[in-house]
């Protein structure tokens, strides 16, 4: 029997995808003034599916689900980064990370109290 319930495995995978996405978004903000740099992001649902299906997500290669989104508003320096948009995405991603973390921590806490010797 698996110790972690399926929903806990999904939450663990979601945390991994959120962390990987946070890296890409940080890279986007860092390269806001880099000529020729295009925004990079991952599709959360597809990435989550991939990590869950690979079983143990810790070994899955997060770089494989990276996508470069082609954008219309490319400036004269071939850079399409809107810093405000990327910061908003970064906050949103961080909020979802913390929310998932809270749910995950609570469910692990319940597991702990269920297995604690009285």
């Amino acid at each position: 029997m698996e110790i972690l319930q399926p929903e806990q495995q999904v939450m663990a995978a979601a945390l991994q995808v959120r962390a990987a996405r946070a890296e890409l978004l940080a890279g986007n903000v860092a390269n806001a003034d880099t000529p020729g740099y295009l925004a990079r992001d991952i599709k959360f649902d597809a990435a989550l599916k991939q990590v869950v299906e690979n079983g143990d997500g810790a070994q899955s290669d997060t770089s494989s689900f990276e996508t470069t989104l082609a954008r219309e508003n490319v400036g004269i320096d071939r850079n399409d980064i809107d810093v405000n948009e990327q910061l908003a995405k970064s906050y949103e991603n961080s909020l979802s990370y913390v929310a998932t973390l809270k749910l995950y921590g609570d469910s692990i806490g319940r597991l702990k109290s269920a297995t604690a010797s009285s």
Partner: protein
Amino acid sequence: MGLDSIIGIANSALGAQSQRITLIAQNLANVDSINSPDGGPYQRRIPVFEPAQVGNSDGLGVKLAEVVTDQTPPRAVYDPSNPFADESGVVKEPAVNPVYEMVDMMQASRSYQANLSVVQTANAAALKTIDLLK
């Protein structure tokens, strides 16, 4: 992969933006330097950024790839009393526009702040993760 590499990425950008502000300060300071060590008036320096791998993270950091020299011809100012004036009384002054430099500085400052707020966001999430151990 992890929250520490986010701080590494943001840190690379903080460094690059600081170097950019340093160059802007240099450009502004030399707005009237008509005799540079390379001969002729000072030419403004322009930073060129390029994406850089930070550790083994997926996100890309940034680095100052090179500093190029602005090839805009110098401003010609008529000032016959100046010892550096040519035979027709024209002094070549640096083609540095202080207004342009100030705007560039504001943009660099904003980019710096944006990266600081990325550090704050990553830090808050990292602290919450550590709280799981409690």
